[in-house]
């Protein structure tokens, strides 16, 4: 540390300083590594466990021998791991456990609800950012206030509304009820407001309408924010559990003769419970892995977008 050299009166003081620095560095990295291990251990367990056989899993528990979790061979020289757990979980296709249907349901819900939310939020964000109209401030204050009310209060009545509309077990209940996100409206309004006014005036001189301006100028400029919203909204649909749990069950539409409106989280949660499947723990872990993998891929591809959006919002799924 050359710039520090001038502060030290002699070599000894410098050495003490460096020793202290090294000790504190070691402590810092040790602390971070311990917590990193704590956070990453369930993932390691999940990845390793999803590939090994129920037999290996059992032996690992009995002997506490971690080599059973590895991708090695057993005493007979056979491979310790296989895709058997995945095959089993994805081929479950009966009245109560039907992961292909859960996947399809979740994809449909994610796509519809994201489309609806993005369209309504972009339009509303545009109105609040750019247009002048009577009641703008009052409406904005109402929106702000709804963000402070716990969602549970809305859920209670929405469950009833869904029942009365005959929406129980329909895609409408899973998508339209969350058709607008107040947070996304705020986020987009903020992004739109950063676009210089001169662009709007220039577009007006060229005879572009308000909606044309939104579509041709604002949306392209705000694309990073919109991308963030699309990713967060998709992830929200993928992870949603509470609401689908209240408004869906194993009836409704059918695929291959098996009815279900459940989403992946509900399917996973209910599959290994109550009258659930008698399976080894390894296959449950494979189920968790199947649901988590798309999220890992999205995280690797869009880490920057996700972290930026999350630091602004603080909402989880």
């Amino acid at each position, binding site marked *: 540390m050359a710039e520090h050299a001038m502060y030290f009166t002699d070599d000894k003081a410098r050495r003490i300083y460096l020793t202290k620095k090294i000790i504190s560095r070691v402590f810092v990295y040790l602390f971070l590594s311990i917590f990193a291990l704590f956070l990453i251990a*369930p993932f390691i367990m*999940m990845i390793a466990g999803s590939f090994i056989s129920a037999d290996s899993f059992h032996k690992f*528990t009995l002997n506490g021998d971690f080599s059973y979790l590895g991708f090695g061979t057993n005493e007979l020289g056979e491979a310790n791991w296989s895709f058997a757990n995945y095959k089993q979980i994805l081929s479950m296709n009966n009245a109560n456990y039907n992961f292909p249907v859960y996947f399809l349901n979740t994809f449909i819900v994610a796509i519809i609800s994201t489309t609806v939310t993005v369209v309504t939020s972009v339009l509303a964000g545009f109105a609040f950012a750019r247009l002048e109209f009577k009641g703008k401030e009052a409406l904005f204050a109402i929106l702000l206030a709804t963000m402070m009310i716990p969602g549970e209060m809305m859920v209670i*009545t929405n469950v009833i509304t869904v029942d009365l509309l005959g929406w129980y077990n329909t895609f409408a209940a899973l998508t*339209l009820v969350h058709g607008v996100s107040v947070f996304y409206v705020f986020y987009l309004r903020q992004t739109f407001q950063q676009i210089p006014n001169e662009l709007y*005036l220039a577009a007006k001189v060229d005879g572009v309408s308000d909606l044309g301006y939104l579509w041709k100028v604002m949306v392209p400029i705000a694309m990073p924010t919109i991308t963030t919203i699309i990713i967060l909204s998709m992830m929200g649909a993928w992870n949603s559990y509470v609401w689908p749990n209240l408004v869906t069950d194993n009836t409704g539409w059918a695929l291959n003769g098996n009815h279900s409106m459940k989403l992946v989280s509900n399917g996973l949660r209910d599959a290994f*419970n109550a009258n*659930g499947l008698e399976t*080894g723990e390894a296959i449950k872990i494979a189920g*968790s892995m199947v649901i988590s993998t798309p999220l890992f891929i999205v995280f690797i591809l869009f880490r920057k977008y996700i972290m930026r959006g999350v630091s602004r919002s603080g909402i989880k799924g």
Partner: protein
Amino acid sequence: MVPNEMILKGNEVNTEKALKSKLISKRRHHTLPQWGTAWLVLFPALIFLTMFMLYPILNTFLSAFVQSYHYSDSAGSFAISQFIAGVLDGNETDMAFGLSNFKRAMGNGTFLRSIGNTAILVIIEVPLTITVSLLIATFLNSIKVLKGFYQSVFFLPYVTNTIALGLVFGIVFSNTEGGLANVLITKLGGKPINWLSWMADEHLGQAPATRFHQGIVIVLYALWNGLAFKILVFMAGLATIDSQYYNAAKIDGASNFTIWRRITLPLLSPQILYITITSFIGAFKMYTGVMAVYSNMNVTKPAYYFGGADGNDWVPVVGWIYSTLDGNRNNTGEASAASLILLGIIMVITAVQFAVSKKRVHY
């Protein structure tokens, strides 16, 4: 017609005004006025907002006070319409308006238990998670090598499915197959613990899991789940602190701890306040995380099982609200009253935090 020179000579504001007046005169004939466009583009959002946010808030609030709220009635789902219909028909049951739903909720042992459970979890989890994430953020901010790697690792739990990882947690703390926690304890010379199972295991000589051991798993999962967002916010706050403060303190010979105590903490106080308030609110509404660690249990009511023989060892308030609602939708009045009590608790605690923070937060 305004002469061109005047527009050019004027300052920016005048130019804008002139352009605007020109635009308005041009537009008036063939396009929608601005307020018209505004309401048009707001329309879809307003429909959803009214139907699924504003009306529910109002209705839940009212249905907590309508004593015999039964939505399936011909009066419709709106609590106040039942009340009005009751008044018009002279039906005394329908028009009864009061606190009976609150009394029923407060007289319910499980609800009272859920408040106690939630309070315990909040008191332990919130300070623990904030302290750990603050330390991690500070340390992370002080290093250069591997910083990006650690940042990604610490953020990873945020992009996972709470149910899926809760199931994995349940298996890690299983007392039978796959119990990583017990494997490690045995290796360190300890005795395996029954963490979560409500059943005694005669083979292993274990009694049913105590509330204490279940609580440890719940808090650990909440910690595991809650660090990522807080670290992210603290890191963003730390990045805005001017390095001049640190350089000045170093020249004055301040120790690392003094620097952290006297510079980092005060300058990070807005983020700390924000995280404290959102953590308290989030922890009071805890539900999915608690339920998820019990995913691995073989019990009869899967969605609303929270440990123990009766399934209510660690039932949280929101868990009680949903199980009451889902069991019988005519319990809506009671569930609404409970949600208002929860709202009240959250509001009081948030107000106290704002009052306390006034002197301590430096903006």
